[in-house]
C-alpha cells in the first residue's frame, strides 16, 4: 500500500553492482528541495539542473568519497520528480555505506524494485507499454527481445497501437455519425465512410495480427528440448553441447527437478537446453507417463531434437513417432551394423529417416555446427516478422481479432446500428487496453475533426 500511494523520497543503487566495479550510480528521487543535501557537498555555487558537478561527499568533517553529481529538476526528469544522480566509486562496501548514510541523514527510504519506474508511470512520463518495454529491455534474453523492448520503450510499437486506435475511432465515429448526425451528412456519405473506415482498420490490424505467432511466447525464453528413450544418448549429447569451451552458464535456478536444464548461447541468443532424461529418472512413473511429459515439454519448446538408438527397438517408438521434431539423430553410429539397424528402424518408421548419425564417443563438430545454424535459422525465421513478445499484448491482439471477425460477419446483414455499435464496444474494450480507455468524448472528437455537423 505504501508503495502505491507514497511520494516520499526514495534512494537506490541504479547499477546494482554485486561485485566491485569502477563506478556505481545512486539515484535519489522525489525530494522537494535540494537544500538539505547541500551540506554534504563541497560545492560553492548553486546546483543547476542537468549539469554535472565534481564534488567531495562528506559527513560533517568526515570525507566519504569523490563523486560526480547531476541534478534533474521536476518535471524534466526520468520519472517527473526531482532526481539527484550520484556517481561513486564502485566498491560494494562504499556503495552500501553511502546508501545508508543518505537514508540515515536525509530521510530517504530504500526504493522498492521498480519504484522509480512506477513513479514515471504515475507521472505519465512513460505509458504502460513503455514500462513493459523497459522491463523487456532490461531483462532481454536475445538481441531481438532487446530490440522489441527498445521499440516499446521508444514508443514505436505504441505508435502502431495509436494508429490502429485512431482507425478504430474513425470507424466507430462513422457508425455514430450515421445515428446522431445523419441529417447533416446524408445516408450515402455515411455508408461509404462506414465501409471505407472498416476496411482501413482491418488492413492495419492484419499487419499487427501477423506479428502474433503462437510460438512467440517461447521467443522470450526459447527452449531446446532433447527427447529420446532411455539409453538413446541424450545425456551424452547434452553434455557434449555444453562443453566447457562453449558458453556454459550456470545451472538455471528454480527449475523443477523433473528435468535438467542449462543455458546455451547461440549467435547471441540465450536458449534453455533441456534434457528430458530427467523426466523418467527423477520420478518413478511408468514409461507412458514419461512420454506424455516429454510431449508436454516439447509443445512448449522452440526447437526439439529426437535421439534414436537404432539398436534398441522398442514399442515406445510408436508413441514418439506421432510427435514432430525439428531434428532427429541416430546415435551409436560407431557400433558395427549401425547402417543396417538404422535402415531397420526407418523401414518401420519412415518418418524418422534418413537422418544424421552421431558417434557419441567422438561427435563430429560439423553436427553441432549444422545443428546450431538450423536453430539460429529457425530463430531468424520466427523473428523476421517482428512477433510481439509480451503476453498481455498478444492476448489482447488475439481478442481483437476474434471480436473483429464476428463484428465483420454481423455487419454484413444486421441493419440495427445500435446492435452493431454494441458489438463494436466489446472490440473497443480490448483494443483500448493496448492504449488507454475509449470514452464517448474521444469518439465525438473524432467525429468533429472529420465532419461538418450543424444547424
Amino acid at each position: 500500500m505504501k508503495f502505491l500511494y507514497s511520494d516520499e523520497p526514495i534512494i537506490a543503487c541504479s547499477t546494482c553492482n554485486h561485485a566491485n566495479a569502477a563506478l556505481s550510480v545512486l539515484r535519489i528521487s522525489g525530494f522537494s528541495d535540494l537544500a538539505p543535501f547541500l551540506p554534504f557537498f563541497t560545492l560553492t555555487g548553486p546546483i543547476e539542473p542537468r549539469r554535472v558537478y565534481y564534488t567531495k561527499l562528506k559527513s560533517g568533517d568526515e570525507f566519504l568519497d569523490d563523486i560526480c553529481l547531476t541534478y534533474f529538476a521536476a518535471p524534466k526528469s526520468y520519472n517527473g520528480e526531482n532526481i539527484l544522480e550520484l556517481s561513486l566509486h564502485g566498491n560494494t562496501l562504499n556503495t552500501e555505506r553511502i546508501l545508508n548514510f543518505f537514508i540515515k541523514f536525509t530521510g530517504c527510504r530504500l526504493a522498492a524494485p521498480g519504484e522509480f519506474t512506477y513513479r514515471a508511470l504515475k507521472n505519465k512520463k512513460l505509458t504502460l507499454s513503455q514500462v513493459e518495454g523497459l522491463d523487456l529491455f532490461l531483462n532481454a534474453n536475445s538481441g531481438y527481445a532487446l530490440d522489441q523492448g527498445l521499440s516499446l520503450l521508444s514508443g514505436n510499437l505504441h505508435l502502431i497501437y495509436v494508429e490502429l486506435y485512431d482507425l478504430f475511432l474513425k470507424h466507430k465515429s462513422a457508425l455514430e455519425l450515421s445515428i446522431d448526425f445523419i441529417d447533416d451528412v446524408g445516408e450515402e456519405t455515411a455508408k461509404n465512410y462506414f465501409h471505407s473506415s472498416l476496411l482501413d482498420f482491418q488492413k492495419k490490424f492484419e499487419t499487427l495480427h501477423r506479428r502474433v505467432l503462437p510460438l512467440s511466447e517461447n521467443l522470450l525464453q526459447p527452449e531446446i528440448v532433447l527427447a529420446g528413450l532411455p539409453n538413446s544418448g541424450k545425456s551424452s549429447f547434452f553434455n557434449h553441447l555444453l562443453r566447457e569451451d562453449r558458453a556454459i552458464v550456470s545451472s538455471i535456478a528454480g527449475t523443477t527437478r523433473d528435468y535438467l536444464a542449462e543455458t546455451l548461447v547461440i549467435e547471441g541468443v540465450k536458449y534453455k537446453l533441456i534434457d528430458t532424461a530427467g523426466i523418467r529418472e527423477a520420478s518413478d512413473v511408468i514409461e507412458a507417463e514419461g512420454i506424455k511429459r516429454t510431449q508436454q515439454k516439447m509443445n512448449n519448446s522452440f526447437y526439439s531434437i529426437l535421439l534414436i538408438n537404432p539398436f534398441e527397438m522398442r514399442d515406445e517408438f510408436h508413441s514418439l513417432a506421432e510427435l514432430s521434431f525439428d531434428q532427429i539423430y541416430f546415435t551409436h553410429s560407431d557400433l558395427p551394423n549401425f547402417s543396417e539397424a538404422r535402415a531397420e528402424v526407418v523401414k518401420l518408421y519412415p518418418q524418422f529417416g534418413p537422418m544424421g548419425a552421431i558417434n557419441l564417443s567422438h561427435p563430429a563438430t560439423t553436427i553441432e555446427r549444422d545443428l546450431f545454424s538450423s536453430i539460429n535459422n529457425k530463430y531468424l525465421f520466427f523473428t523476421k516478422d517482428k512477433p510481439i513478445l509480451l503476453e498481455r499484448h498478444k492476448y489482447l491482439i488475439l481478442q481483437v481479432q476474434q471480436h473483429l471477425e464476428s463484428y465483420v460477419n454481423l455487419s454484413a446483414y444486421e441493419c440495427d446500428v445500435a446492435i452493431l455499435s454494441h458489438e463494436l464496444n466489446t472490440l473497443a474494450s480490448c483494443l483500448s487496453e493496448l492504449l488507454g480507455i475509449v470514452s464517448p468524448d474521444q469518439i465525438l472528437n473524432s467525429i468533429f475533426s472529420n465532419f461538418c455537423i450543424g444547424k
Partner: protein
Amino acid sequence: MKTFDIVIVGGGHAGVEAAHIAAQFDLKVAIITMPGIGLGSAPCNPSVGGVGKGQVVRELDALGGLMGKLADYAGIQFRTLNDSKGFAVQSTRVQIDKERYSEKAEEVITAIPNIEVIREKVLEIQDSAGSFFIQSESSTYKAAKVIMTVGTFLNGKLHTGADQSVGGRIGCESSPGLQNLFATIKTRPYRFKTGTPPRLDKSTIDYSKLEEQPSDSSVRNFHCLHSPTDRFSAQVSCYLARTNASTMEIIRSNKEKSPMFNGQIKGIGARYCPSIEDKAFRYPDKNVHHVFIEPEGLKLDTVYPSGISSSLPADVQKHYVQSMEGLEKAEIKVYGYAVEYDVIDTTDLKLTLEHSQIPNLYFAGQVNGTSGYEEAAGQGFIAGANAALAFLQMEPLILSRHESYIGVMIEDLTSNTRDEPYRLFTARSENRLFIREDNSLVRIYPYRSQFLLNKEIDQYQRAFMSAYNDLMEFCDGTMISETSPLMTEFSGIGELQRLTRRMSVSEVLRQAWLNPIDVLKRILDFNGLVISDDLIRTVAISKKYDGYIKRSESQYEKLKKMDGMRLNWETLVNSNNISFECKQRIARIKPETFGQLKLIEGIRPATLAVIAAKAL
C-alpha cells in the same frame, strides 16, 4: 413583500418545466421573466425532439413534464429519425409552430393557480438568513428557493457583422452578469457563443426546386395521454436545399467581415453547431451542405433555414442565401446573428442541480452551458422537482445515467468542466440499447412514482405498468408449437430462418429477421387479445433487445460474483501473463479476493480479464 416557496428566474423551456413540476407539489411558485418575451419561446430552430432529444422529451413526459404536451399541440410536421436503423436509435422530431407553442405554454402555466408569472427584469439577488431576496426593477420578492434559468441573457452580447449590441437575443435586453446578481458565484473565465441563421420570407422561395419532406401521419406523438396519431395543428412540409460552390465562395471571400474569424467574438461555439462560416473555413474542400427549410409557424411568414447560422454582415448574408438553388429570390426578414453569454461552472452543481456552495440555489438550462430546448427542459425539470422535494423534505430525484438520457446529461454536466456548449447525442450513453423512446415510461415510472402524486398521469402509468408486466409474462410463458401455422408465417427465407422447434413468444420476438411489433400484434390477434399499440410496441422491442441487454447485465453480474472469489496473489506475481507493473502492485497489496484485486489502483482491466478467464 411577496413571498414564494420557489422563484424561477427565466421563463424559457427550463423555467417553464421547473415551475410546472414544482406546482404539482402544491407549492407557491413564481416565474420572473423579462418583459416582452412569451413563455417557452423558441428563438432558434422551430423544432422539438431529434436524435437523443426525442428520448428526453418522452422521459420528461413520463416524469409528468410539459414539453411533450406543448410540442403535440404546436406540432406541424412529425418525423421519425433513423427509421431504418433499429428501434434503439429511432427518435421523434416535431416541427413546431413557435407562436402556438408559446401561446400554449402561456395558457397552461397561467391556468395553474399556484404559479404567478411576473414580467420584470431582475437586478440583484441577495442571500440572507436562509432566504433569497430578489430585487427587480420595481419590487422585491422573497423566496426559500431560487432556480436560475436565465439562458443566454447573462451579459448577453449580439453580433451581426461589425454591429454589436447588448441583449440576450434579438429585440431583447440582456440581464446583468452573474457576478452582479450574486457577488458570491464564480462564472467561468470565458463565455460561450451560439448563433442563429437568417429567417427567410416563405413566399419568396421556389419550392419546386427543393426536395419535399412531408409530415408522417403514423408517428406517435409525445404526450402519453394523447391518442397516438392525433394532430392538433394543420400539417405542413419541410424542404431540403443545398449550398454550392458559389455559396461557399461568397463566405470565404468575406472572412475579414466575420466576427467569429476576425477576433470580434471570443466566446466558444459548439463544434456540432457550426455557423456557415465555420463550415466554409474548417472544411475547405466541401461545398455542398444540407439546408433544411423549416416552417416557423402556420401564421408566421418566415421560414428557418437550418444549417446556415451566421454572424456575417447583412449584405453578405443576403448574397450567399440567394446563391442557392430555389432561394434565388429569397428575402431575409430577420438577419442571422451570434450571441455571446456567460456560463456557470457546472462542476459546482450537485446531481440535483443545486449549487454546492450556495444551498437552495439551483441552475438549469443554457446558463449551464448546454444547447437545445430539450436539454434545457430536462434540467429545468430536475431543478424544479428537486427544489420542491427539498422544500418538502422528501428524497431527491436523481436519474441514473443507465436509465435515461436526462441522467446522462446531468452526470456529464456535473462531473466535467465543458469547453463548449453541451448537446445530447445517443453516443453519449453507454446503454443505448436500453434507453429508448418506446420504453420511456417503463424506465421512468419508478422515479415518477416516488413523488407520491395521484394525478391523471399517475393513474395511467400504474395501469400501463400492470398491463406491461402481464404482457411481458405472457411472452415468456406462452409457447408456440412448431406445428402452429404462425411458425410457418414467421419463418423467413432460407434454412437458417426456419422456425422448426417449439419456442416461447419471447424467443420468436428475438429472431433477427422479424419485426417484433408486427409479430407480437399477430400473435395477440391470433389469440384473440386486444392490447394497445403503445404497450405492444414497448414489450415487443424490449423483448427484441432482451438478449443484448441481459448479456451486458450478466457480464456485470458475473464480475460481481467474481469479486468474492479467493485468489493466491503469490501465483499471480509469478505469472507470465501479468504485466510487470501489475505484479508489483499485487505484491504490495497482497489481495486475497478478486474484489480486492480490482480495487487496486492501476490494475488494468486486461490483467483482471486474464485472471478472470483463468478462474472461469
